[in-house]
């Protein structure tokens, strides 16, 4: 299937790149990316991936848009307050690019559903845009078990970090951070605050990794943790060795199935149906 005249024009700045071209743009259009959490990280990631023409985008979120989200979650607008985030996200993407099909999952990822969500469209790449460590470890473990590449990221205050896991090509999140910190031990954005643009910087880096993976170009952040400090404007790539004794991706894994860690206190609010 070739590109239509309209697509040739819409994606002309991609197609002119020697690393993309018409073939690469077709790969992007055939690409399937799952974005878990449509908040500070997931919102900009979803928007850039939609604009780029990623043909299938999955959005996972159970939350509704709150006024305090709008300072950074740019996929949602003022009139969306109170609306389900996945619906608001889907509407924004639909208005941006008709080439994109959005699949929505109105739930919080858990051991019981995450494999089904990832397998639903056999997603090529997963973006972790969540804000809690049980979910981050669950996404890591599910991606390792299903052998799916994913981008981890976190932001707080004026700082951010991201790394990319590709099966067999480097460490996973658990190689670096063995297990989730105790509940409420590490502050969240709600507790500590975050400069709105941090999600834009780091979430856009996650989208960049997804596109590079789909295109098969450049070097991914596999084996590196990229850290960014907005106050000093330092970007640093910290080399990460793979851990042979990692509990999930090591030579003798002790984690062979998914389990739910204790959820943070504030997750007690009801899922919106």
């Amino acid at each position, binding site marked *: 299937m070739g590109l239509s005249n309209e697509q040739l024009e819409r994606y002309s700045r991609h197609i002119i790149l020697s690393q993309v071209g018409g073939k690469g743009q077709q790969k992007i259009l055939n690409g399937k990316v799952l974005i878990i959490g449509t908040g500070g990280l997931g919102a900009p990631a979803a928007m850039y991936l939609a604009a780029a023409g990623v043909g299938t985008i999955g959005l996972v979120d159970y939350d509704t848009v709150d006024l305090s989200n709008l300072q950074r979650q740019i996929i949602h607008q003022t009139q969306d307050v109170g609306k389900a985030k996945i619906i608001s996200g889907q509407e924004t993407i639909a208005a941006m690019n008709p080439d994109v099909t959005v699949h929505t999952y109105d739930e919080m990822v858990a051991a019981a559903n995450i494999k089904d969500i990832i397998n639903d469209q056999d997603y090529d790449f997963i973006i972790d845009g969540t804000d809690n460590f049980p979910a981050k470890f669950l996404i890591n473990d599910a991606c390792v078990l299903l052998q799916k590449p994913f981008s981890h990221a976190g932001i707080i205050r004026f*700082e951010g970090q991201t790394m990319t896991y590709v099966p067999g090509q480097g460490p996973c999140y658990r190689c670096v951070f063995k297990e989730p910190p105790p509940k409420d031990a590490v502050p969240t954005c709600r507790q500590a605050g975050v400069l709105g643009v941090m999600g834009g910087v780091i979430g856009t880096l996650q989208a960049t990794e997804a596109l590079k993976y789909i295109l098969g170009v450049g070097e991914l952040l596999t084996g590196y943790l990229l850290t960014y400090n907005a106050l000093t404007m330092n970007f640093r790539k*910290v080399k990460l060795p793979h*851990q042979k004794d990692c509990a999930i991706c090591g030579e003798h894994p002790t984690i062979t199935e998914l389990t739910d860690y204790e959820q943070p206190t*504030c*997750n007690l609010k009801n899922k919106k149906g």
Partner: protein
Amino acid sequence: MKVTVNGQTLELEKPVNIEELLVLAKAEQPEYVTVQKNDEFIKREDFAITTVADGDNIEFLYFMGGGAAWD
């Protein structure tokens, strides 16, 4: 002696172990920091017995949440 901690040079008067360095370098919530010395992870139980020598490159890696407000 000089060591590098997260890219910044730190002047030390005497050799220290990782546990002491976490305090000296004012690591936030040291009980949850992942530590690397010269590109290798140091196990938490080895913090007290791992000394830092002149020229060592130390990285403190922090848990970072953020993203969707599932907090």
